[in-house]
């Protein structure tokens, strides 16, 4: 590749909280990286982390933080790679403190760790005048149930930390592509008003944020779309020039592949209007993006751009929304389908006679109609797993429903087996908008 111009190499170390750690360690070791980014925060994760923080103020960060840091931090130090991640979740300061202590234990001295927060806006909610974007309901309807409200921050907090020379940056809620865009803005000195460049950096971030997915993960169909060595799937590397043109690649020895097809699938993943991909930094426009295979597993990306923002930030509001019961039982062999259907009728009747109130209930025949509506003439299955899922106001009602499935053993159709029962508290998410000017990122530093 062109070596005279300044280039930045960024690796993607995680596509979600529970992602594999080995490919990230390989990238840091062998990827000749400047930065590694771990994207670990799904829509609801921060609400769950908030609940944890309420129980223990030293927690509320990513559950894999310690494992990831133990595997990756020493490699980051020996290879001069800076680490950026939203593993701070609901408690970036605690995550940074924990990381500082770990670094010390690992014999890594003078590591500067930044906690970026300010995304927690729960104290700014105005219950009487704000409405949820999804349901249109006033926030006041759910006031007592709300447990978290986190604004999607852009690059600003991370930029402050980079300017102060942080080696590790742990954030709370930051928009996924902004985790990747921030080091580009910092290194190239891009203006935060140069929207076409911010659009290109956002396209890079969006392609990278799901780690393995652009390298052939979530792609193979077992028949036509073949991916070699998926068992050793590698994570991606992006190399970018100052003008915002970049390519996506992977380590030579890693499994998977980077092709125009894997890039196209990932570019459109979780996108609505491709010409208007909203982030806190820019309205990115992916509609003119094109991909070109320069060599095996090297895909050049051009054509992304962007335009100015709306001045609003999206806020994810987490709230308690009752309970979910999920109980299952299997029927096999002769009349498996008939017995499953009989079981459904029995459950329905028992709920009626018990007066058990559920807000919503779903009967799935797994193998027949659980993912998609039933085919008009389905093949007769050899086995069926009946799944009863219901939403209830109380845990007690959920448990009662589960027991009505379990007792099908001795009180239902013949030869049902393998009952499973799970109750979970539902932490739901809806969104509101907030003025960007109201939200100020804050940075706090810790040293090993």
């Amino acid at each position: 590749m062109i070596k005279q111009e300044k280039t930045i190499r960024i690796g993607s170390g995680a596509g979600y909280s529970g992602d594999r750690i080995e490919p990230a360690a390989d990238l840091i070791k062998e990827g000749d990286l400047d930065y590694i980014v771990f994207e670990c925060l799904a829509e609801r994760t921060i609400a769950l982390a908030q609940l944890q923080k309420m129980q223990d103020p030293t927690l509320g960060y990513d559950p894999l933080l310690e494992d990831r840091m133990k595997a990756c931090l020493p490699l980051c130090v020996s290879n001069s790679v800076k680490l950026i991640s939203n593993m701070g979740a609901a408690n970036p300061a605690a995550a940074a403190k924990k990381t500082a202590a770990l670094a010390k234990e690992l014999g890594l001295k003078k590591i500067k760790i930044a906690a970026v927060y300010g995304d927690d806006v729960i104290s700014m909610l105005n219950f009487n005048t704000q409405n949820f974007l999804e349901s249109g309901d006033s926030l006041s309807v759910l006031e007592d149930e709300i447990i978290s409200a986190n604004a999607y921050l852009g690059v600003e907090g991370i930029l402050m930390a980079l300017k102060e020379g942080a080696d590790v940056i742990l954030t709370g809620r930051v928009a996924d592509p902004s985790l990747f865009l921030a080091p580009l803005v910092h290194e190239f000195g891009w203006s935060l008003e140069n929207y076409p460049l911010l659009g290109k950096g956002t396209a890079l971030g969006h392609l990278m944020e799901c780690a393995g997915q652009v390298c052939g993960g979530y792609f193979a169909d077992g028949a036509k779309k073949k991916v070699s060595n998926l068992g050793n799937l590698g994570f991606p590397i992006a190399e970018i020039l100052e003008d915002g043109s970049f390519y996506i690649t992977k380590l030579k020895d890693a499994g998977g592949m980077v092709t125009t097809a894997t890039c196209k699938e990932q570019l459109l993943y979780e996108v609505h209007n491709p010409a208007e991909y909203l982030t806190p930094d820019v309205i990115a426009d992916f509609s003119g993006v094109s991909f070109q295979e320069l060599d095996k597993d090297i895909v050049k990306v051009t054509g992304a751009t962007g335009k100015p923002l709306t001045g609003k930030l999206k806020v994810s509001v987490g709230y308690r929304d009752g309970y979910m019961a999920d109980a299952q039982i299997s029927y096999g062999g002769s009349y498996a389908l008939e017995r499953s259907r009989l079981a459904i009728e029995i459950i329905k009747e028992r709920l009626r006679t018990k007066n058990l109130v559920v807000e919503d209930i779903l009967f799935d025949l797994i193998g027949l109609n659980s993912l998609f509506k039933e085919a008009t003439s389905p093949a007769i299955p050899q086995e069926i797993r009946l799944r009863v899922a219901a939403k209830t106001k109380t845990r007690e009602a959920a448990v009662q429903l589960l027991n009505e499935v379990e007792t099908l053993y001795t009180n239902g159709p013949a030869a049902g087996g393998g009952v499973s029962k799970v109750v979970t508290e539902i932490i739901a998410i809806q969104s509101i908008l907030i003025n960007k000017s109201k939200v100020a990122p804050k940075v706090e530093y810790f040293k090993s």
Partner: protein
Amino acid sequence: MKLKDIAHSRTGDKGDIINISVIAFDEKDYPLLLEQVTSTKVKEFLGGTALGEVTRYELPTLAAMNFVVQKALRGGVTRSLRMDKHGKTLSSILLEMTMDTKH
């Protein structure tokens, strides 16, 4: 011929909305996709599973389309009773759509 013979696909989710990309393996098939895989046909195909409106965005440089489907997840990822709360399996299911190859 089925859609899977000429295109590949991936689903993404946001709240109760999903998007399903449909990407031509070979760009020469893109006009056929544009003609036959309309938002009306996708809505009809997913009907009973996804309940809301379907919007199609076209990306000629990628020989791809992006379908955005409202009310697709029975209330959204965080509170859906669906087995597949994210609707991730729907992309592969859409690929079973039959293509009319009479002309």
